[in-house]
């Protein structure tokens, strides 16, 4: 066990997986010579060569589109999108091809590619360095989505994504890239997709979150006098519905937290799941604390936008 930051854990996973499987290849903008703008791919080019850690032209659709072709040639590409909002040019390839090509092949070809990107706000950056695009990805059939909140999960979920036979998108909470530190198992380490983590046991209310909102919920739990269960989803598809329903059955109260805009965000899916499958367990409304349906704001006021401990606390209090 080594104590690593979240971004170091990502780097560790990439080193481990490239060493483990010669078919794994990392590609993206500035991943090679520079080792990534967040250093997530540091050391890969020196260790595995420029053909296993490739600096591509500046073209996200070209990156993802050629990754589809790489899969056809037997590779398992790991594509880095430099930032959340800079992944949007690749959505066309994602929706029209990445999510459909296995289906198109009558199930006889696999497209085991991974897309990973830093996401989320709070980093005092110019616009479009703060987005939380997970809903665009998780709404797309054929795609799986994972979002770690701890260094150990950052390693384990990325390893699971790279080994998964289907396309997986991993969103890494850049806000805690360097501040989240924790014990990370060395060498082979996989956290299976689809298993939520109970970040904190509780009995009065369930806080459901992922990524950088997990620590926010934990801090809110500290402030609250009621007993909060904090559920860290870790994976949005596959989704650990049992863990959600079990917790709701126990507490009867739910607050869902994410940074993305509210309308048709993933929180809506969680609320819908609960409204369909756990309606009679509920002792109150299913609340969401989310980003607003407005462009991500100027960073001097971004704290008004990103769900805060106090907004989560207020939502929980309103349930009692």
């Amino acid at each position, binding site marked *: 066990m080594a104590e690593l930051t979240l971004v170091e854990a990502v780097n560790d996973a990439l080193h481990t997986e490239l060493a483990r499987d010669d078919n794994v290849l990392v590609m993206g903008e500035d991943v090679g010579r520079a080792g990534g703008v967040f250093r997530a791919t540091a050391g890969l080019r020196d260790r595995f060569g420029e053909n296993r850690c490739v600096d*591509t*032209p500046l073209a996200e659709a070209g990156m993802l589109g*050629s990754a589809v072709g*790489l899969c*056809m040639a037997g590779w398992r590409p790991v594509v880095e999108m430099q930032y959340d909002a800079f992944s949007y040019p690749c959505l066309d390839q994602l929706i029209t091809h990445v999510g459909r090509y296995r289906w198109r092949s009558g199930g006889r070809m696999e497209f085991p590619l991974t897309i990973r990107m830093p996401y989320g706000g709070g980093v005092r950056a110019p616009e479009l360095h703060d987005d939380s695009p997970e809903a665009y990805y998780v709404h797309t059939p054929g795609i799986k989505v994972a979002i770690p909140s701890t260094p150990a999960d950052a390693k384990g979920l990325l390893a699971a994504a790279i080994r998964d036979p289907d396309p997986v998108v991993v969103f890494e909470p850049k806000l805690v890239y360097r501040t989240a530190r924790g014990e990370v198992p060395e060498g082979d380490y996989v956290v299976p997709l689809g298993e939520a983590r109970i970040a904190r046991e509780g009995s009065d209310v369930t806080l459901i979150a992922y990524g950088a909102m997990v620590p926010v919920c934990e801090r809110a739990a500290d402030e609250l006098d009621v007993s909060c269960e904090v559920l860290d989803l870790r994976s949005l598809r596959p989704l650990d519905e049992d863990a959600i329903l079990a917790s709701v059955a126990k507490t009867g109260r739910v607050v869902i937290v994410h940074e993305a805009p509210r309308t048709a965000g993933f929180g809506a899916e969680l609320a819908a799941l609960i409204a369909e499958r756990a309606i009679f367990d509920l002792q109150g409304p299913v609340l969401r604390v989310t980003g607003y349906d407005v462009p991500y704001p100027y960073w001097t006021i971004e704290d008004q936008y990103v769900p805060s401990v106090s907004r989560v606390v207020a939502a929980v209090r309103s349930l009692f």
Partner: protein
Amino acid sequence: MASTDALSRFASEGIGDADLLELYRRMVLLRTYDERSVVYHRQGRIGTYAIFWNHEAIQAGATFALRDEDWIFPSYRESAIGLIRGMPVETVIAWWRGHPSGWWSPADWNVASICVPIATHVPHAAGLAWGKKLRGEDAVAMAFFGDGATSEGAFHEGVNFAAVMNAPAVFVCNNNQWAISTPLEAQTRAETLADKAVGYGIPGVRVDGLDVLAVFAAAREAVERARSGDGPTLIECVHYRAAPHATADDPRAYIDQARVEEERANECVGRFERTLLEAGVLTPEHAAAVKKECEDLMRAGIAAAEAEPAPDPELVFTHAYVDPPGNMRRG
């Protein structure tokens, strides 16, 4: 006419009569597929169909330069190009019937899936070619797309990727001068589409898209260049769309029919046939036999496609994931 000289030139290069007759057979096969399909559509036996009448010289000529280990990336306009690799006629017909038996595995034929969204398969070809090269495998990727496709970002990003990666790719632009109802001059201001190669630092060539031997010669050179590690080539095959965009389309609203008639009079299969007859490579009997063989193939193909049992509704779910999420079936 130039083509007979071409024949002797090819002969001197070892492209013998057998090859020419095989090339002829492929053109006739594609032509027969296309003409029968329009009839099948009228009879309600297939759905909307993208007609490739008079595009056969491009499709047969370019792919004639490939080996079986090379990959073909077709657009909807090249839906039947797999026939050249021996793909069963019923498979392609089934695709146009919306029947699951029409979905093949690219790995089975080294023919990628029919690409419906314009130009989005261009980066796939770049990636496949690059990926094969990285593995030290000797395979070339050949992508087909239209004149309109060159306006899409996906074309630009894909060709640039292939060029930068020095990937063994050949980009074949079917310039039929129309994108549905949009003429070439509304698509680009460039003198030629081959000019676009300059911006990627790769060779661009322009050939008569109705001259199968000219297309083949250009493709052969491009494939050799790719194989020998010198990177991609862009080939512009110039002709003029002499049929509707698809069965649903009525071009009389926007294309001058006189021009279309001219084009039809000079259609590529008959042109090659005349050349071969003239050169004594092909006899009328052989030509008739080839046509008969292709018609029989089609007859058997449509019969087989129509004999397919109705698809299992379960197929809605079967192929989405290797390892499906638990809630996939909830709706």
